[in-house]
């Protein structure tokens, strides 16, 4: 039996035609599984650009690009108006401005976006504690608990979230509701911006069939090309293959491909994924090959990483240095530490060692310093003989 959700008064109602009898709202969605589905993916619409427009109403009707201006900047986010001109994220800024010369360009203000993201997450938290943030503007929510306790249907809770974010934060989100993460994410992309889409378990296979295999999480350029080379372009074609065939062809990933193609995904929504690594990086305003300059920057990045480690009560067991060459080749070098550390000086020392080993005159455009093999801080920096003055 179909159920309807009024997105304005946030209630599930028996289906009927026309506007909502309670609030008069026109935004209604109907779906057979609407009252049963509990896994959601919420994605903020053109997040950085929307935050900037919220704070600068004068820009509301103008094409807005968030990103670094100048020769080598790229588009971080384009508002929906700029997108109409063909501007996309990650596009070089000069190209974006060729397409849309009237666009207003603002540099990203990560501190502000982080604060807005925190506000949004606080609204999520009113509905569930089971939140898995993917990035500042994207998260999975598992609403099963509240749903099953009869507190409020998941669909209703999501409608409330969307309304509250609009009213209290001043930006819009798109919501995908389904029975697992894979389908929820696909759903959230189906009706952007300010969308609310549902994919039910029963219809999953049929909904997926015409979609490109590139829609599958984890199918990157390489896998896509391999699949397409063997004549598989749509998920429907994938559905025709057995799990065995896919595993033979694509190894472990084949298993996931087979599951995804059937609309199955067993990954749980995992709140606050444990941090696996902590890093800081920066792009140079002009490329440099000077070891001394790289080391000086690495030292500052090391301080940032150390501050984060201390804040999180963690220590790094290995230091990772990332360098991107002028021709965009990425070098990653790492060094195990004799003892896990929280100290900027130890990070700087290890980074310097790695830089000196690799600084052979090549010029670099980006440097990053990070730690992995994270451990509790109690294991960090055992007292040393020479620490004492």
């Amino acid at each position, binding site marked *: 039996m179909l159920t309807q959700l009024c997105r304005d008064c946030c209630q599930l109602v028996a289906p009927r035609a026309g506007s909502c009898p309670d609030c008069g709202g026109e935004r209604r969605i109907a779906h057979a599984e609407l009252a049963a589905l509990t896994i959601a993916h919420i994605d903020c619409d053109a997040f950085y650009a929307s935050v900037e427009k919220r704070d600068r109403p004068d820009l509301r009707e103008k094409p807005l690009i968030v990103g670094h201006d100048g020769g080598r900047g790229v588009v971080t986010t384009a508002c929906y108006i700029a997108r109409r001109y063909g501007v996309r994220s990650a596009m070089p800024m000069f190209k974006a401005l060729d397409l849309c010369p009237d666009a207003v360009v603002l540099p990203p203000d990560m501190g502000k976006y982080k604060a807005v993201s925190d506000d949004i997450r606080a609204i999520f938290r009113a509905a569930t504690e089971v939140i898995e943030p993917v990035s500042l503007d994207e998260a999975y929510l598992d609403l099963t608990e509240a749903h099953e306790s009869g507190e409020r249907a998941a669909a209703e809770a999501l409608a409330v979230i969307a309304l509250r974010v609009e009213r209290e934060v001043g930006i819009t989100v798109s919501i995908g509701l389904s029975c697992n993460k894979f389908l929820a994410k696909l759903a959230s992309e189906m009706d952007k911006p300010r969308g609310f889409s549902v994919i039910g378990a029963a219809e999953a296979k049929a909904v997926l069939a015409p979609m490109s295999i590139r829609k599958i999480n984890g199918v990157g350029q390489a896998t896509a090309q391999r699949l397409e080379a063997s004549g598989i372009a749509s998920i429907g074609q994938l559905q025709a293959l057995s799990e065995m065939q896919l595993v033979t062809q694509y190894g472990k990933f084949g298993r996931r491909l087979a599951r995804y193609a059937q609309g199955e995904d067993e990954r749980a929504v995992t709140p606050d994924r444990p941090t696996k690594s902590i890093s800081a990086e920066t792009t140079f305003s002009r490329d440099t090959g000077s070891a001394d300059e790289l080391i000086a920057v690495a030292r500052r990045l090391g301080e940032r990483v150390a501050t984060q480690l201390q804040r999180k009560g963690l220590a790094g067991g290995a230091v990772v240095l990332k360098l991107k060459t002028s021709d965009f080749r990425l070098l990653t070098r790492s060094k195990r530490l004799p003892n896990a550390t929280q100290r900027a000086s130890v990070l700087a020392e290890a980074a*310097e060692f790695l830089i000196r080993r690799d600084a052979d005159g090549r010029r670099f455009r980006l440097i990053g310093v990070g730690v992995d093999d994270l451990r509790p801080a109690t294991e960090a920096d*055992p*007292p*040393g*003989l*020479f620490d004492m003055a």
Partner: protein
Amino acid sequence: MRLLIEKSALLKALQHVTSVVERRNTIPILANVSLRADGESLHLKATDLDIEVTETARAETTAPGGTTVPAHTLHDIVRKLPDGSQIELASKGDEGRLAITAGPSRFLLACLPADDFPDLGLDGMSHSFQLASRDLARLIEKTRFAISTDETRYYLNGIYLHATETDEGWRLRAVATDGHRLARMDVALPDGGMGMPGIILPRKTVQEVAKLLADHSDEVFVHLSPNKIRFTAGNVVLTSKLIDGTFPDYQRVVPQNNDKNMRVGNAAFTKAVDRVSTLSSEKGRAVKLNISDGKLVLSVNNPESGSATEELETEYSGEPLEIGFNARYLLDISAHIEGDRSVFSLSDPSAPTVLQDENDASALFVLMPMRV
């Protein structure tokens, strides 16, 4: 080049020299051993550009000359030839091959020209002395375990060898530390050592010299130049670069005023630490020492796997003290204490502790406690 040599003589020489040859080399000739024959001798030489080992073996040369062949391959061939074999080495100059013949076995190895083989040389010798092989071996054995493996502190990646004046007169002293423990060993300063500069002997050199000393019981001649050292032990000459760095002022971390002395049977202590540390975590490895009047309680508490305690008799009359150490570090040190009893000189739970053999002050170990 053409010569005849007995298998055991060639094998022994190859064992000494090939041990410095890296298994993987970007410079092809460094994978080779240089062979040069003249008169009654075969001179062998191998290097990794940081260390060079040469050895002279008795041989019957019929045609003097030289070449280089892959060191590990030649070593493997000679090793597998029957004991007592007479081996003939003969260059096939026009083919760039070395023929190795022993009885019915015949091998042809590809050569690289002897002239291309690098020579480490020793420039401007500043100090020379000779010391007993046993003394040099002890300087190395008592300290090498504490050498740091952390490449960022390259100046700690070796043994610091220097002359120092003590209550017992001038001593030749070896020190190694990884920043958490320190090992120090003294022998009488040999004639000629006075005024020698402090030098840092790289880890690999330490390892190679230790191997050499295992087969050599006579005097060892040591020559120093500003950045190299040469050891001559019988027919073997090992020349090595030194670590170009400043060893930290280790004296300031050797406590002078630790007045709480605990004496404990070394063998019993070692076994007890080994037993209780069965339960210490892979990463932490802390063992706690509860020291009170005449009694030492060792304990390990691992929230994941459980706990262990063991009690030992000691001689101790100071204030009760609770202090934690890395179990592996304790075991490393106690393994280097040869006497029956060791002495712990303690101060407080966060201060470095000194460990020594009760009856032998030549070796001294300093250990930094852990937080427990």
